[in-house]
């Protein structure tokens, strides 16, 4: 694909995205508007993450893409191929070997280092969107740090169900200032948002970029008497035996029997290799 620039986007566009990224890093959790481009893949399929990755990648990088924790899900394969083709960068499935990791819906189980960048694909960047559909209103609420509506929602959950009925995209407060949507990761992953790695969030269709710089405080919203609980299925992985990883439930036969396996395929494969 010689007709396109390195990593597809032209340098002017990358510069525009990098400016938004720098602003995002400077104001952790704040949603920076950016002039998202039409990418050669549909909106909603990771165009925000792809644009952020394109703006971050250098020829020396080693790139990993996961979707639902797995490297071999179709859209992860498609995005990885896109950058292999347009940037010619090395790719890997090993979390520890990657310098840039693009993800959808998961944070890898392997602890990330200062040398790594984690790029999230974000569908709806606004954590207040389902409480208030108007962008003009939600921007005002963030500006005034007016998050009462969110707390009322969480309280109503407890009043009605006895617990906070949000299982993924669980809202967090970043560095005691902005309430942020961590993208639709299961709440099990929320504690991992406090990381040594730089975390960048791209929402293409909604034209927003935000960031969590390394070692930033990220607190999942809760109440003193109802503390945040990063729950997961109460099973070990049927393949590697891990008790501390997030599990996918798989239906294995016609009678509906289930088995539970690691959602992070690299983590699971690594553990099985070590055991062998």
């Amino acid at each position, binding site marked *: 694909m010689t007709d*396109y620039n390195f990593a597809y986007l*032209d340098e002017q566009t990358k510069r525009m995205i990098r400016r938004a990224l720098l602003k995002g890093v400077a104001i952790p959790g704040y949603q920076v*508007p*950016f*002039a*998202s*481009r*039409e*990418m*050669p893949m*549909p*909106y*909603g*399929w990771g*165009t925000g993450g792809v644009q952020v990755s394109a703006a971050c990648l250098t020829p020396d990088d080693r790139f990993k893409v996961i*979707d*639902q*924790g*797995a490297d*071999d*899900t*179709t*859209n*992860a*394969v*498609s995005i990885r191929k896109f950058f292999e083709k347009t940037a010619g960068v090395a790719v890997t499935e090993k979390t520890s070997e990657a310098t840039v990791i693009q993800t*959808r*819906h*998961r944070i890898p189980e392997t602890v990330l280092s200062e040398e790594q960048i984690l790029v999230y694909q974000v*569908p709806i960047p606004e954590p207040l969107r389902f409480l208030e559909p*108007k*962008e*003009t209103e939600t921007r005002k609420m963030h500006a005034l740090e007016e998050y009462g509506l969110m707390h009322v929602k969480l309280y109503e959950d407890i009043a009605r*169900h*006895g*617990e906070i*009925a949000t*299982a*993924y*995209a669980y809202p967090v407060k970043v560095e005691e200032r902005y309430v942020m949507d961590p993208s*639709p*990761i*299961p709440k*099990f992953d929320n504690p991992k948002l406090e990381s040594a790695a730089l975390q960048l969030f791209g929402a293409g*269709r909604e*034209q927003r970029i935000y960031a969590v710089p390394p070692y930033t405080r990220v607190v999942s919203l809760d109440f003193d008497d109802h503390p945040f609980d990063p*729950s*997961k*299925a109460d099973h070990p992985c049927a*393949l590697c035996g891990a008790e501390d990883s*997030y*599990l*996918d*439930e*798989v239906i*294995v036969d016609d009678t509906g029997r289930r*088995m539970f*396996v690691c*959602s992070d*395929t690299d983590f699971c494969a690594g553990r099985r290799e070590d055991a062998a």
Partner: protein
Amino acid sequence: MYVAVKGGERAIDNAHAWLAEERRGDRAVAEMSVAQIREQLSLAVNRVMAEGSLYDPDLAALAIKQARGDMIEAVFLIRAYRTTLPRFGASEPIDTGAMTCDRRISATFKDAPGGQILGPTFDYTHRLIDFALAAEGDAPDAPQTTPQTGKTPHITEFLAREDLIQTEPAGTETPRDLTREPLDFPADRALKLQALTRGDEGFVLSMAYSTQRGYGRNHPFVGELRVGQLPVEMEIPELGFAIELGDITVTECETVNQFTGSKTEPPQFTRGYGLVFGHTERKAISMALVDRAMRWQELGEDNVGAPAQDEEFVLSHSDNVQATGFLEHIKLPHYVDFQSELELIRRLRAEAMATRAQEAAE
């Protein structure tokens, strides 16, 4: 035994090969050329150019061929290509008064300078399937006449002379570019018009229709609808004057809307405006109606809470490439978020059932 879902890469390659085969269809039937699509499916080409925001009939025809006739997919192909093109500069504003009109009608005056020109329209055709077309019958030659030369004045100019219609303030600022800056609210009128002209035809049509049926009613008359060719010029800094780049076909609609006055404005007709690439009448008229509905604030009208009055609602949902992408992304795997929901529902359900059992026991 559980086998991890492998082979995504091969599955994708095979799917693409199958898709190409399906696109070609039965090989016993002659393949369609891009020129055939451009010439014989020109209204489809126009729609793709309008919503793709790129005036290139050949490329639009190719996109339609590649997309197997899926219009939104074709629009998407054009958009993804357009965004990679370098910007050399901006053209001079086009002068629609200088248009060579193929069609020009007014619903407000029986006759006016420049005349009523019906042009190539479906309007008065009887919608009977023409089986002769199936027999590859060639089209008869249409009668010819000498084209009008000179400017065709806009109908609303005649109302403006008597101050019966509001005058639009001339703007000197270069309008912002929706495709180079993130959309933010409140949007100015130039930005709203940009969003509408590239908006989905079906969406803009339905929004316009909703105003006619009473959701933000602003009784429109088609003051004028014109379709034709006009030149696009660009000033070259090295030359110091504008040169002609080529001709484009556009459709322009100006509506004349009833307005009995408000606290801030005297009784006067008001305008809605639509301008779209190609021969795209339905879209241009729809655009003018929605434009007018969104002007309630500027004219001091009441917000009756109609969807078409809500610029954030209209502009955030008018783009079909965005809409279809987000809608169709729910086909992607969601195992992880679904799993977390599954566990939550099981837990909540177990608690609810336990409570119910306890109540029954008491």
